[in-house]
């Protein structure tokens, strides 16, 4: 019951923010979500054994998020800067040997894994409007649901037993088929400027990247021996658990939009 209630409340708040805020204000929300997700990320990688410089990495991650949507600075420049400040921090640490590389890699991953996607989500809002953001989120949600139910009905072959034992290939096919169909039907109505084949292609890419994102986050948690990424949302675990698939799907959508 808690799970349903908090799920509905969370969904309603997210929906209202996306619908009523303008892109700049939404960036503020994205930065807040980014900070929360980073906090959980830091805890997970600490569980795996990586020690990342908390504040500098957080700043680099927020910077990456903020610079994407309005193209104030080229994203390449932000990543270069992130590498620079993270390296300085790692250099001054007291660690030696292989862990140094682990620390650096885990720190650099944060702006790429968290900052870029959340910035892209705001970018979608700025370029294509709130309908497009909701379309993306709905497609990811439909893909997740389709995977769950087709997996439960027809699931035989495990997809990635090492990463997530419950996921099946059949479930993945369900997502890969149903998500593009949903996106095409909804997209032709909401964003009628694109042709149907564009939506089919995009739908397959969103579903595939969503599945990868989901597995990636499970993999991190499994490696850290954690069940949930956090306990912020009653019944739902942490922020990262909620947005794992979206993190991989939103840059795909964003760059698809910028391609045309």
């Amino acid at each position, binding site marked *: 019951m808690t799970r349903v209630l908090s799920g509905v409340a969370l969904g309603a708040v997210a929906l209202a923010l996306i619908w009523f805020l303008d*892109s*700049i204000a939404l960036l503020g929300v994205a930065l807040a979500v980014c900070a929360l997700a980073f906090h959980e990320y830091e805890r997970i990688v600490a569980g795996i054994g990586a020690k990342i410089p908390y504040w500098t990495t957080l700043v680099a991650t927020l910077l990456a998020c903020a610079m994407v949507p*309005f*193209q104030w600075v080229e994203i390449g420049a932000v990543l270069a800067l992130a590498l620079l400040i993270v390296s300085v921090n790692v250099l001054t640490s007291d660690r030696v040997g292989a862990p140094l590389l682990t620390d650096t890699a885990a720190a650099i991953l944060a702006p790429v894994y968290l900052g870029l996607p959340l910035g892209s989500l705001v970018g979608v809002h*700025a*370029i294509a409007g709130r309908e497009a953001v909701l379309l993306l989120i709905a497609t990811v949600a439909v893909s997740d649901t389709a995977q769950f139910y087709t997996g439960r009905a027809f699931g035989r072959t495990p997809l990635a037993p090492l990463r997530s034992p419950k996921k099946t290939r059949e479930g993945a096919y369900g997502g890969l088929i149903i998500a593009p169909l949903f996106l095409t039907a909804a997209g032709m*109505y909401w964003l*009628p*400027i694109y042709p149907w084949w564009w939506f089919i292609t995009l739908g397959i890419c969103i579903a595939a990247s969503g599945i990868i994102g989901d597995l990636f986050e499970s993999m991190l948690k499994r490696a850290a021996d954690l069940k949930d990424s956090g306990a912020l949302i009653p019944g739902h675990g942490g922020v990262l658990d909620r947005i794992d698939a979206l993190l991989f799907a939103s840059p795909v959508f964003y760059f698809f939009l*910028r391609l*045309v």
Partner: protein
Amino acid sequence: MSLDQLLEWIPAGGPEEELARQVEFDRLPRHVAIIMDGNGRWAGERHLPRVEGHRAGVEAVRDVVESSARLGLEVLTLYAFSVENWKRPAAEVSTLMMLLKRYLGLELATLLRNNIRFNVIGRAEALAPDVRTELLDAERKTAKNTGMLFNIALNYGGRSEIVDAARRAMESGVNPADLDEDQFARFLYTAGQPDPDLLIRTSGEMRVSNFLLWQIAYAEIWVTDTLWPDFRCRHLLEGVVAYQKRDRRFGGITPPVPAGVR
């Protein structure tokens, strides 16, 4: 070419359908010319760089071209790039050219499917070779189409067009005493095309901006506050309906001719 073709294309029951039903198809403007303005402002409102406005503007072009063909216009002319636009930052110019190439690559199929003939007006020889190749290719591939003529004005200026026409007239050795308006018009980029009946400008600006200066002598001008990236079939239909409510006199006094009656 008709209401049915248009209704196939626009969402049923929306404002587009209502407007489409108000259009009198027996007195459509033969030639509609559009000054596509407001891409930069559209981007500015969203805190985006100007190039994002142009990118969004391409979507409006796609929509308006197909809508015009389905509506049954004979000629559609879009003002894409003026001789003065070279003054813009080099990065913006190169993005515009890149978008133009991409548009042609993406939309050639649409042009062919809708029987649209593509034609460039302006001093195209000054454009980059790769862009010119794409343009010539699109012109060649659509040359046999018999539907709407889609002019795109690139490196275009109304005054330079008149100067070019004067040069060509002189080169042709025409006797100055014999040169009249009809004959002069045959030296313009738009030779053989009807003059625009309706000139649309977006983004609320009340200027002609050196566009088709000769040809718009008697054009009805309709200005909308809508910014170009937001311009869609619906706005085109609004323009056509507004045009059809006007009386055109062509310099005479009585009786006024309702727009579109020839």
